[in-house]
């Protein structure tokens, strides 16, 4: 199957360097300290943040100099084409939870909350490729909504290579499964640092640079969208308290 048509368009009609439509909302729930809903195309994710609070369960887990970050990645049983038997607890979900924690730990100022715990729960409602990225982005929004200090945005994006040469950005489920290599990057776009990099399938080293660049540019673009959403959210929340804002 060709991932790119003769006209240079992808299966869903996007150009190779075009992101899917991003829509998001902060503060969708009342009970968590922070929550966010994010959809990137047909991938839809809810994230909730609880904390910082006292360590739940065994005290021995507490860290004396920083907060414990606890992540859980879970997928609704109806989120995939084929029904999932268990929403979480399988190997894939556990791996995702760990990756999520690793990425988010890099931006959260954990040293401010020694001996306490921050819970980040993400729930994939609909999966259509780039689940991990959408989860990272949603979790970032939820952390901001919860008012937990972070050094900067943590944004993730995927990229692939079509026909062995054209880099694709923000790949969908169909593109993910149709054989090309997948590169997942979680990065801090402002400082330009890469936090997590995961790659499946091999491709020639010559292409790495190109694909990476596309993925990072994707991160930049996503960051811009998220940033606007956060500003809008804060403005509308602040409007109720008669805050005055300068728009940029």
């Amino acid at each position: 199957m060709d991932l790119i048509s003769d006209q240079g368009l992808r299966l869903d009609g996007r150009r190779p360097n075009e992101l899917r439509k991003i829509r998001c909302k902060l503060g969708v729930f009342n009970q968590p300290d922070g929550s966010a809903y994010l959809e990137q195309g047909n991938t839809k994710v809810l994230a909730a943040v609880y904390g910082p609070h006292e360590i739940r369960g065994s005290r021995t887990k507490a860290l004396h100099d920083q907060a414990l970050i606890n992540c859980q990645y879970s997928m609704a049983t109806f989120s995939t084409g084929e029904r999932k038997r268990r929403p979480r607890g399988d190997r894939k979900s556990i791996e995702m939870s760990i990756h999520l924690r690793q990425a988010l730990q890099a931006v959260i100022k954990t040293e401010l909350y020694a001996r306490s715990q921050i819970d980040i729960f993400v729930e994939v409602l609909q999966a259509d490729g780039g689940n991990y990225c959408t989860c990272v982005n949603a979790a970032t929004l939820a952390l901001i909504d919860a008012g937990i200090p972070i050094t900067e945005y943590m944004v993730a994006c995927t990229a692939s290579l079509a026909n062995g040469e054209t880099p694709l950005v923000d790949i969908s489920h169909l593109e993910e499964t149709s054989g090309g290599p997948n590169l997942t990057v979680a990065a801090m776009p402002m400082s330009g640092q890469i936090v997590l990099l995961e790659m499946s399938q091999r491709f020639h080293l010559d292409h790495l640079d190109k694909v990476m660049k596309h993925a990072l540019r994707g991160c930049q673009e996503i960051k811009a969208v998220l940033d606007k959403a956060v500003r809008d959210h804060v403005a509308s929340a602040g409007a109720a308290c008669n805050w005055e804002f300068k728009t940029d």
Partner: protein
Amino acid sequence: MAGMLLSEAEKTFILRGAESNFRVDGRKRLDYRPMELETDVVSHASGSARLRLANTDVLVGVKTEIDTPFPGRPNEGKLEFFVDCSANATPAFEGRGGEELGTEISNSLSRAYQSSYAFDLSTLCILPGQQCWKLYIDILILECGGNLFDAVSLAVKAALHNTRVPLVTAAAMDGAQVELHLSDDPFESKRLDVSGVPCLVTLCKIGDHCLVDPTAEEEVCSTASIVLAVSENAFITSVFKAGVGSFLPQTLHETFKEGQEIGIELNEALKAALEREEKEREDNEKSPAIQRYGFLK
């Protein structure tokens, strides 16, 4: 709900409120909180609905699968409820923490749907004794603000109403093996009959009075509640008690009467809402963009 802490004064306040028919949030004893309902929100599912009842948020997806019927019931399809309590609702649900509550809800739903009047499983039969539809009704609880049973049952009924089962166009017999051909056309599908499907009504006993649609705080104050499954035409398809308390026979009689009336109203309101939504959709169909809010509202 676990982890909810109320002081004695708060409890007394709620108790007095129930007594004087003026609850903490200004409602009367038999008033519901406002609800928001939207169907067809998950594209991977054959039918779906999202219901938000004040702080309680439920998402239901129905998926269909072909299965073989139970040997003892060759003419019937299968229905399976699965409730997943997301950790988004409370950290206590992390891992397998919500399993107990989830099983309790799914059991109570399957009990309410057990009678063939509530849901006729024979409509899910494809080839008697060989092939049938299995409906997976997956319920995701995203936020708990009290009155889970009612919210879940309403969302499930809405999702079933929204469900489209693909049409079987042909079946080829190859020895004992059966091959089915399903229609690819998404518009060629079968709707389910949900006229008998019940809604659960929780009547929460606080002091000597019963009230409906309890908030999480009110649930903590209650010692016992009765959950009724009421269908459109006043049939009660299942009843069970929740909580640790007990009832005087007289109280139980009154509770049933109140519950039944409310159940009928609830069914009617749901039906009206679903019809209204469907009509709006049809009207919107002509315009290019169909607006679905989901969680963006």
